[in-house]
């Protein structure tokens, strides 16, 4: 491979990305193989079901899958595009080398596209593979259609990132980009609900409600996924063309934005009007510091939006039930509070100056308690407000929401924080789990989400005076014990 060419630089980018995944241990590879096998089993059921008599609906379903994948990829691509601007990395090295500038952005953008493709490909390609096994070899077109969509989405994300830098300025663009990434994730939740939302007014699934150019455009990615040669050709050519056009036309501007981001000076703050009042009591000092850092964390909005997308899906998909039982809708605050508390706890845990607090004359438990309080109190305040709003409907409802909200938030914080080491080398070990622990991180995240919604299930059972609520709550407490195990 000739040094300095696009493939050469792309190989470098991909090598860095792959090494970042820590795939060197046998256990990780075995876990991945097990996941691939599992996805193929699930994909086999889906492919078999779709292949049995739902032919008319296939283009619509396939279009919805393409829309979902694109929305997901858009969120990831926007985030990664912003990261490309702000993570200085090796730009200085690349730009000071005799490498052609026109090579740098396409290589980096292709790496972004590859990264955004991973998750949708892991879900969709097993279905295509199993479809081929069941006699739909044309479904293997997904191997071309999905990367094409990734290229298109990446090109749009790069443009969006560049636009944000130009419109809101280098300093604010990062936060705006994260909000945008969060919104695209939110759109994914909506895209999955399209058939439910439009209902009989537009028969999205079989496309019969759609006519004309709009239907053609909307259904084209679906038809391409299913192997329609013309649709596939149009999709691949269009997406690759847009990607090439964007990276060539706006590549220099993008690199200039990245360079500007590195040298962006903080605007001089105005002299404060009020005198900064120092606190005497230790608790408020520690909590205030945690809250300041949480509120100013650049990923807070994105993390919270992502956490809430599941709740949005629940709200949309269970509209009828909510209308009948508003208390059950109010109980949605239980998982929302728990997920928010878990997120805040993780932010509090990632202390930027762990050695400072490690060197302070303060028992580690006291500092940990401050982090627990800082992470748990804001979500609990929301729980209390919702529980109070439930009071006119039912006192039992108020008590249920309050008790389950407290238990769920406490469980989330405790499992995220309570026994985790938080300073010095031990903290580094926690933040950068040892080789092979990556699967455990994913597993823990899933368990935490499960636990949060489990507490909602307990709340709903309690609202219906069902004694199984006690059983569910007991199981969830056991889950906390599992989650407390260090990685």
């Amino acid at each position, binding site marked *: 491979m000739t040094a300095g060419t696009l493939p050469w630089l792309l190989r470098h980018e991909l090598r860095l990305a792959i090494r970042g995944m820590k795939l060197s241990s046998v256990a990780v590879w075995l876990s991945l193989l097990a996941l691939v096998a599992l996805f193929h089993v699930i994909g086999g059921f889906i492919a078999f079901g779709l292949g049995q008599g739902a032919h008319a609906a296939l283009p619509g379903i396939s279009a919805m899958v393409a829309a979902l994948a694109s929305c997901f990829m858009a969120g990831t691509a926007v985030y990664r595009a912003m990261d490309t601007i702000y993570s200085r990395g090796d730009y200085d090295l690349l730009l000071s080398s005799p490498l052609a500038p026109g090579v740098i952005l396409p290589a980096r953008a292709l790496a972004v596209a590859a990264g955004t493709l991973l998750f949708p490909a892991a879900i969709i390609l097993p279905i295509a593979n199993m479809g081929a096994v069941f006699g739909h070899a044309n479904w293997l077109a997904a191997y071309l259609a999905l990367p094409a969509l990734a290229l298109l989405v990446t090109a749009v994300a790069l443009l969006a990132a560049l636009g944000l830098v130009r419109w809101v300025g280098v300093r604010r663009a990062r936060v705006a980009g994260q909000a945008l990434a969060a919104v695209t994730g939110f759109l994914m939740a909506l895209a999955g609900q399209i058939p439910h939302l439009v209902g009989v007014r537009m028969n999205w699934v079989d496309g019969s409600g759609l006519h004309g150019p709009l239907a053609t455009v909307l259904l084209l990615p679906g038809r391409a996924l299913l192997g329609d040669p013309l649709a596939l050709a149009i999709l691949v050519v269009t997406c690759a063309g847009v990607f090439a056009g964007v990276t060539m036309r706006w590549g220099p501007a993008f690199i200039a934005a990245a360079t500007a981001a590195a040298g962006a*000076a*903080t605007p*001089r*703050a*105005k*002299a*404060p009007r009020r005198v*900064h*009042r*120092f*606190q*005497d009591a*230790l608790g408020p*000092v*520690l909590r*205030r*510091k945690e809250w*300041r*850092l949480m509120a*100013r*964390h650049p990923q807070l909005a994105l993390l919270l939006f992502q956490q809430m997308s599941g709740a949005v899906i629940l709200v949309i998909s269970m509209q009828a039930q909510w209308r009948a039982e508003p208390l059950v809708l109010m109980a949605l605050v239980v998982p929302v509070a728990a997920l928010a508390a878990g997120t805040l706890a993780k932010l509090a845990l990632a202390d*930027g*100056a762990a*050695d*400072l*607090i*490690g*060197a*302070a*004359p*303060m*028992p580690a438990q006291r500092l940990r308690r401050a982090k627990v309080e800082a992470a748990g109190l804001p979500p609990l305040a929301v729980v209390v407000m919702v529980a109070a709003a439930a009071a006119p409907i039912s006192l039992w409802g108020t008590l249920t929401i309050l008790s389950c909200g407290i238990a769920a938030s406490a469980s989330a914080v405790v499992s995220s924080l309570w026994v985790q080491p938080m*300073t*010095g*080398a031990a903290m580094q070990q926690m933040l950068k789990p040892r080789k092979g622990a990556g699967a455990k991180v994913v597993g823990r995240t899933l368990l935490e989400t499960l636990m949060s919604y489990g507490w909602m299930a307990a709340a709903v059972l309690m609202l219906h005076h069902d004694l199984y609520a006690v059983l569910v709550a007991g199981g969830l407490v056991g889950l906390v014990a599992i989650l407390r195990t260090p990685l």
Partner: protein
Amino acid sequence: MTALEVRGLAKAFSRPAVQGLDLTIAPGEFYGLLGPNGAGKTTTLRMVVGLLQPDAGSIRVFGVDALADPIAAKRQVAWLPDEPLIYDKLTPLEFLEFVAGLWGVPASVAAARAEELLHRLDLWDHRAERCEGFSRGMKQKAALAGALIHDPRLLILDEPLTGLDAAIAREVKAILVERVRAGGTVILTTHILEVAERLVDRIGIIQHGRLMAEGTLADLRGRVGRGDGTLEEVFLDLVATPDSAAETREPA
């Protein structure tokens, strides 16, 4: 009473980092701990400030057993590493409020001291700006203010002048000298030997985790037979001697 007394300190990671180190530093002393990269300087200091647990040995800070009562020992010490220990998302005032809270400084005292330190370190005009926009020198000054806000009896600095421009480095050095004159104790590691030569009262040189030489510059010159040699020449002579560690440990 000594400011710092270390006896038989040992720590090993994949290989021994510190091996049976003894140090005695008097109150009001400006002590320079020198050594090549990987000699064990930072590991030693991290054990002294309670960030690492030693495998063996004892540490006493102003008579307090730092291993038995780490909280009492930490109250008297401030630690300033080469990478500034600050929160990028806090302003200098918010940061100083937090550090003062950790060390239990009363709010009124902390507020006055913060104002004085920020004026002294030329950060007062930046007191409401988040540290994320600061240059490295400004961050190091903010971290130094954090180290001084609780008026520590023992100030430990690991490469505090790395990456600072001449003016800021001079200011930092002046502050350190002032603290020693006022009776404070300062331990400094640095690779800038001219700084150690001009500032410190006594020098300890460690290599492979062992104290291989200790004394004033004149003592060290005498040891290597360089009557008017610079610290750099003396240091290079000492660390180049393969058996010097074994020879010099006995007197220590």
